């Protein structure tokens, strides 16, 4: 085995240009894989982040007509005690109800969202998205969106009057302005504490939903079904973002598949390259193989000479390729920037994926070396000696 390895290394180092070219071939393949893979993963992460990063990913609502989730605090503590497939990064309750604002000449329909502070900041990041004022702490304090503020022309400290569908009229004080980055939410949401919403909506102690975010968003459905089982309450309904965003999911799937296709074809091209170069090497080195066999080298050891060549080419190619790929990523995020100096696309560097690319390249090279290895093991020494 050691002999096979040292013969392999000598064969590779004796034809330097050939070795360099093949390593370069593998390296380019690996770097394309690392770069494209990271780019697409980055894109997907961005897309998922903008779509569901600031909303509930697993939601518990009531399936009853009154939409009330009673006894929500014990539900939260029960969920907290569960051993879930993916960890929860946010867990909070909210009491929502539609209300109307009379702005003199017209009536606006908005959503009053009573959120649990500070827990709900993990989902909505209200604390960082507050452009003016403060988070509501007291009864009848509310935040309004940037858009609504312009529509109503109100300032912090002023009061607005709302009325509910059953015509209860309430007066609330604006204590801050938020900007969630989405125009419709900035126009349609009023945010208050849970107490305020409960009192306005006459909900008593109940809320209307319990909202969660998870660390691995693509496993949100697993959490949802586990929670649903654990709660065993037919009046509660557990939904997850995946079942409500099928279009997004199929888009992401399409991206993943095209990325995998690119990578598969890169691997095939690289493997064919290695196989053909090593096949030529068998012919080039047939004299040496013949004489080694005449001296008593076993057929199997001869095969290992070529397998080791494949392995060594794969390892060096993968290392150089990863370096190239990382360089490409650094260059891309340094030079391809928008007017604000931020990279146009955020590339996500996933070490597991990079390692996987390396392992795939190394195994592909070794497997590609099997064809020439077989050929070399079949080579008969007498033919080489007879033909000089």
């Amino acid at each position, binding site marked *: 085995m050691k002999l096979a390895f040292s013969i392999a290394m000598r064969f590779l180092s004796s034809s330097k240009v050939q070795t360099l070219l093949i390593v370069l071939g593998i390296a380019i393949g690996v770097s394309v894989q690392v770069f494209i893979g990271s780019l697409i993963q980055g894109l997907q992460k961005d897309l998922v982040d903008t779509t569901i990063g600031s909303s509930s990913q697993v939601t518990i609502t009531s399936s009853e007509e009154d939409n009330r989730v009673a006894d929500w605090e014990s539900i939260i503590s029960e969920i907290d005690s569960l051993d879930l497939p993916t960890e929860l990064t946010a867990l909070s309750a909210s009491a929502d109800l539609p209300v109307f604002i009379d702005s003199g000449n017209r009536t606006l329909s908005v959503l009053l969202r009573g959120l649990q502070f500070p827990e709900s900041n993990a989902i909505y990041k209200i604390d960082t998205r507050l452009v003016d004022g403060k988070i509501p702490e007291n009864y009848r304090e509310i935040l309004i969106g940037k858009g609504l503020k312009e529509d109503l022309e109100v300032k912090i400290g002023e009061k607005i009057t709302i009325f509910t569908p059953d015509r209860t009229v309430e007066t609330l004080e604006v204590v801050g302005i938020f900007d969630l980055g989405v125009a419709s939410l900035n126009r349609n949401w009023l945010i208050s504490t849970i107490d305020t919403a409960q009192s306005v909506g006459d909900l008593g102690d109940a809320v209307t939903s319990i909202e969660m975010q998870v660390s691995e968003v693509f496993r949100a459905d697993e959490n949802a079904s586990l929670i649903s089982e654990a709660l065993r309450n037919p009046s509660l309904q557990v939904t997850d973002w995946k079942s409500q965003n099928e279009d997004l999911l199929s888009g992401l799937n399409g991206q993943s598949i095209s990325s995998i296709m690119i990578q598969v074809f890169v691997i095939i091209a690289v493997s064919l390259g290695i196989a053909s170069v090593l096949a030529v090497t068998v012919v080039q080195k047939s004299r*040496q193989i013949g004489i080694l066999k005449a001296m008593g080298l076993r057929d199997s050891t001869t095969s290992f000479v070529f397998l080791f060549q494949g392995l060594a080419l794969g390892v060096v190619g993968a290392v150089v390729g990863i370096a190239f790929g990382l360089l490409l990523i650094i260059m891309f995020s340094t030079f391809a920037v928008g007017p604000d100096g931020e990279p146009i696309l955020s590339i996500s560097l996933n070490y597991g994926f990079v390692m996987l690319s390396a392992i795939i390249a190394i195994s592909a090279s070794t497997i590609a070396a099997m064809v020439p290895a077989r050929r070399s093991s079949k080579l008969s020494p007498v033919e080489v000696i007879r033909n*000089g």
Partner: protein
Amino acid sequence: MADIIKLEEIKKEYGTVVKTEVLHGINLAIEESSFISIVGQSGSGKSTLMNIIGTLDKPSSGEVTISGRKTNKMNKNELAKVRNETIGFIFQFHYLLPEFTAFENVILPYRIKGLKPTKEVVERARELMDIVEISMVRNNLAPNMSGGQQQRTAIARALINNPKIILADEPTGNLDSDTSSKVFNLMRSLNKKYGTTFVIITHDRRIAEETDRIIEIKDGNIVNDITR
């Protein structure tokens, strides 16, 4: 003395559709520690005979016994072991591995055994290289040596595993006459020193005349067998 090589009714034919028989039932016994030559013109079948003796090629029929062991029923790996341990080859075109230095080439048959070279083996390689006078080029790659140096390296390599038999196919065929006689004398002295059996295949009568026994092959038959 005991026979180290014994051939019985060796026939060899080539081709599948049109069969050409190149050896027609050769019977031959070679004694241990002898120094013999096989002569014949090109196409006479002498190289085929050597390949069969060296277990590189299998006879179509007949039996080959090397050092008391019948080789007919051995598998490829057993044959490889016989070649590695019992037989040393010297070829006309020296067949050194150009990727390795002279010293590494000499030690190769030992490494093929699958063992790490011991101090004794390294010492033996040095000694052999001294005897064949290639110590000054020990770290040269094969292509950076003269023809004579390469052929002498091949001789040292053939001897490293202390084989009982050395098969030399036209060992001087590629060398000028001075170098030729130097290589020949070297083989002669190694035969005396280590008692190694030498079978030298040549078409050069003058070389054959110097050996102890001349076997002449013509059209696949032994036509002459002279012991002096």
